């Protein structure tokens, strides 16, 4: 019997991410399944990000685009990929060494599975970060962000990719739409992604990202009001 095609492309959008990019790429190349290529999408960087991506002898490719944001870059990478599976990683984050092997094992057992995600451990990068380590949601949380995803390319194409207009919460929007489209999901209990929180990416967690999140929630509610079942509990009438 022919072995299943388990080739994976990992898309890493990068914008001036030279500081941590090497660790991100290395975590993909260090996976204990080797049939994975990295596609770095340079999103208008002016630092050494491209030089870092190009310094790898093989399995790492780099494409450039004018600054369009991470969603545009992820979609660019997904369109350029030629593998049956797609994965994503952000420039500041890194994967657990057996991330892909674990997820591919589940895909092998479940031919109907469209998307696998796992849990995320936030890591506070700078010494002062420990100050916020007891934030209620800074521990291990379900990883509804692109960095934990392994998705069949066919399912990703069916969904139409990330919303190019979003800069902060394209992942949230994608997962909300995926659930509405009844994509077959699986959430592994394992920590598959380490998410670095540091001064620069913390600033993106301010007003604009909150406003985008509200837009996404509003759109999700509107979709559901058009006929999909809605899970609401009314705090006054119950």
């Amino acid at each position, binding site marked *: 019997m022919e072995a299943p095609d388990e080739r994976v492309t990992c898309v890493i959008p990068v914008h001036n991410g030279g500081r941590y990019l090497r660790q991100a790429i290395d975590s993909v190349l260090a996976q204990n399944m080797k049939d994975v290529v990295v596609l770095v999408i340079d999103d208008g960087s002016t630092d050494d990000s491209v030089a870092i991506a190009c310094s790898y002898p093989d399995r790492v490719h780099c494409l450039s685009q004018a600054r369009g944001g991470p969603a545009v870059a992820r979609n660019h990478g997904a369109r350029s990929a030629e593998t049956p599976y797609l994965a994503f990683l952000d420039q500041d984050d890194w994967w657990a060494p057996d991330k892909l092997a674990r997820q591919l094992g589940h895909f092998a057992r479940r031919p109907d599975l469209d998307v696998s995600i796992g849990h*995320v451990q*936030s890591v506070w990068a*700078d*010494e*002062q*970060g420990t*100050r*916020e380590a007891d*934030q*209620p*949601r*800074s521990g291990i*949380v*379900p*990883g*509804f*962000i692109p960095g934990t995803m392994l998705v069949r390319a066919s399912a990703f194409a069916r969904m139409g990719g990330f919303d190019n207009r979003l800069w*902060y*919460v394209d*992942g*949230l929007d994608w*997962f*909300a739409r995926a659930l509405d489209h009844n994509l077959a999901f699986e*959430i592994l209990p394992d920590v598959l992604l380490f*998410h670095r929180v*540091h*001064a620069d990416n*913390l600033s993106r*967690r*301010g007003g604009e*990202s*909150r*406003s*985008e*999140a*509200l837009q996404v*929630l*509003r759109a*999700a*509610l509107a979709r559901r009001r058009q006929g999909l079942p*809605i*899970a*609401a*509990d*009314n*705090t*006054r*009438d119950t």
Partner: protein
Amino acid sequence: MTENFLVRCNRDSVAAEVVDGEAIILNLETGAYYSLDQAGARIWQLLEHGLDTPAIAARVAEEYDAPAEAVASDVDALVADLLAEQLVIVDPAPVSEPSSMPSDTRTGAPRAYAPPALKKYTEMADMLALDPPLPGLKDLEWKRPTNE
């Protein structure tokens, strides 16, 4: 009975917007989100603006041409719900009079008044655990590493 206390939006832990007469309110601590429409959205808007509950009730009763006592009771009930969900907090140090009033942006004929109902949704709480932002980080000061 209308209790005269000032509550204010819990800005550290809540993100909210009123669009097309509907307020969407996200509790960043829990990942639950809420909707309020019509009079409820208007009450939220006035709360955001710093009005106390009797002033809100009076204004809403006027705008909707609705019985003042019933509206006052509804405002108190809604504020109790908002407090229970930690979307508003009792203001220990109320500020002085608000500077300018947000205008009633409804157009056309006045809509019939209906008691506000806070609808709560929790199905996306897991999705909101990481992205968007953790609450309460505004005062976090990072020390940049000096040895790089």
